[in-house]
């Protein structure tokens, strides 16, 4: 039998080995961190979705800036 490590590496193998409820709880921790860092619940535009409407208005973040900004650009 193939073991997860042989196929997907350590991190994914560890994730696969969690029980569904453990995965749910880990995901909740990630959410708490994301929200504590000021992350927004407004989803990114999904341009491949059949529902995507490029003309639809989107709410602006409360601080008036986009969610991600380039602070330093490295040379190619």
């Amino acid at each position, binding site marked *: *039998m*193939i*073991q*997860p490590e*042989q*196929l*997907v590496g350590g991190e*994914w*193998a560890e*994730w*696969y*080995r969690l029980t*569904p*409820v453990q*995965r*749910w*709880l880990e*995901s909740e921790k*990630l959410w708490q961190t*994301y929200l504590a860092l000021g992350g*927004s*619940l*407004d*989803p*990114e535009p*999904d341009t*491949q*979705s*059949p*529902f995507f*409407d490029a*003309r*639809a208005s989107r*709410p602006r973040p409360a601080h008036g800036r986009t969610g991600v900004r380039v602070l330093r650009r490295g040379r190619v």
Partner: protein
Amino acid sequence: MGGQACVFYGAAEFSRDTDFAILADAPNLARLRKALAELQAEPIAVPPFALKHLRRGHAIHFRCQHPEALQMCVDVMSKMRGVDSFPNLWRRRTTLQIPDGEKCDLLSLSDLVQAKKTQRDKDWPMLRRLLEAHYFQNQPKPKPAQIRFWFQELRTPELLVDLARRYPAICRRLAGQRALLVHAQSGKMDDLEQVLLAEETAERQRDKEYWLPLRQELEKLRHAKLGGGS
């Protein structure tokens, strides 16, 4: 039916919206309106929140204004391409009790797999992960139904070859239903990868064709909304 279900079953998606598959009937819609009111959720974009649009196969989109769910988007659907009717989804559902005692009803894995066969790039690695997780969790002592499910749905060449080696008779029997199983039997990894890709491409094309008339309807609704029509 979306990101939360994927996390539960073993993929990892950081989805910021919440998708619900619901029974589209009048009493259930009344209950949904009440729940959405608690979330201070307003419909966004098109189509408007109406039974006929849900039954047609459209998704209705909402954005929450409740402080605890500010800007969270909720999508509601009742009919999905290639996915069974709601009563059958409900019969097969998985119920999860989360630590605060709340219960969440999720699509079964097999129904989630069908729902994820879309035209979007991001759904296909997700499908692969969902199936891998299920395979690794159950491979020591699989039930016959699980073996059949893997032969029908796995998207990882190595696992398909492994499965074909372990259960050659079942593989031969199911090869009529999924042509690529012939390549799993032969163990030719490159061929298997190519036919898996072809299978994905064909499925994505079917999804695009399914959505074509629905997208046209959405476009008409958008025009009507912009023009102030009904």
